[in-house]
């Protein structure tokens, strides 16, 4: 088997792109560790760019890549179910703060949807693009479902969700330091609502209390968004 044949064989196997995905993420994570946990050295952004470059250079279509990467993507579902666990373990501290949590959730979520759609619409983006932006702050499975319901492009939404998460994870610490918000619960919940799982991952790195509130805010945002979207879908809009 010569080198070209070997490549053709490997490229058809899910194992190769699965392994390459994990290697790219581990590389990104190693850089993040080495930088002393700097937020802008984001493992998702690094591995996403590296993998996209590899696919372009090797002329591999995304669908072929996804044959392998789907095993990682699949775990988003079980991981979403698993969010019940930190919510349960921290229920005593979370349930006392349901009122501020819920107010901040509604405000943060409305600002997220309103400003993203407003900016994209005013700057002339086509409807499928600004509709795909609307659910960008909710975690992927829900965001994709919402995008499909309202006439956006689910796969584009998935990518915009990830971009939002990376931006939120990078900006949250300097932004809230500048605002003088020192309460870890407020900081965590804000990044959970605005930047879902990637923001939550960042919050857990900075402070455990912030992490728990980020996870709770992400879960509640997912539930509320899914409910609102299903009601809207039910009324036929």
């Amino acid at each position, binding site marked *: 088997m010569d080198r070209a044949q070997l490549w053709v064989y490997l490229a058809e196997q899910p194992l190769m792109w699965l392994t390459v995905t994990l290697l790219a993420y581990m590389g990104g994570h190693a850089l993040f560790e080495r930088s002393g946990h700097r937020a802008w050295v984001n493992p998702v952004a690094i591995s996403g760019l590296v993998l996209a470059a590899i696919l372009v250079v090797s002329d591999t279509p995304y669908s072929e890549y996804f044959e392998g*990467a789907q095993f990682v993507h699949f775990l988003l579902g079980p991981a979403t179910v698993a969010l019940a666990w930190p919510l349960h373990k921290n229920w005593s501290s979370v349930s006392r703060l349901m009122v501020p949590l819920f107010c901040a959730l509604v405000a943060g979520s409305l600002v997220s949807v309103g400003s993203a759609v407003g900016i994209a619409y005013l700057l002339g983006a086509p409807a499928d693009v600004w509709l795909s932006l609307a659910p960008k702050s909710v975690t992927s499975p829900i965001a994709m479902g919402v995008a499909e319901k309202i006439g956006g492009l689910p796969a584009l939404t998935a990518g915009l969700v*990830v971009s939002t998460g990376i931006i939120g994870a990078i900006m949250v610490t300097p932004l809230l330091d500048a605002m003088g918000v020192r309460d870890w619960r407020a900081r965590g919940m804000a990044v959970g609502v605005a930047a879902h799982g*990637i923001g939550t991952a960042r919050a857990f790195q900075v402070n455990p209390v912030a992490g728990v509130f980020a996870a709770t805010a992400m879960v509640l945002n997912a539930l509320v968004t899914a409910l609102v979207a299903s009601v809207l879908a039910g009324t036929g809009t």
Partner: protein
Amino acid sequence: MPAAITFLLSFQLAGMVLVTALSLAIPEPVIGLVLLFAWVRLKLPTPPALDALCTGLLSHLSLLFVPAAVGLMTYADLLWAHWLPVGLALLVSTPLSIAVGAWVFSRVAQGMNRPPTGDEVKNG
């Protein structure tokens, strides 16, 4: 560990059954989350490895978003054509939403006489 994995997947499967049977517009993992939360709140039995499994899955949550991040390349032309509205929307709306969320939370918590804990701000 097999027990914990089976347990977790069963909740997602139950979510899928409910979503399909009742034609709900809510994604099945969210229903699975609600069912699992109800289960543990009711103190029903759980496999011993569930804690390790959930903690493990969630500790590298960002890895699971990598395939979707790479998927943006399939929309390279569309994004290139509309880079300004999309870029500005993401870069303005995300910090704005964080700032509003944190501000509202602090204000309402103070109003309820549950002042924020003034922990020192850790670097990071």
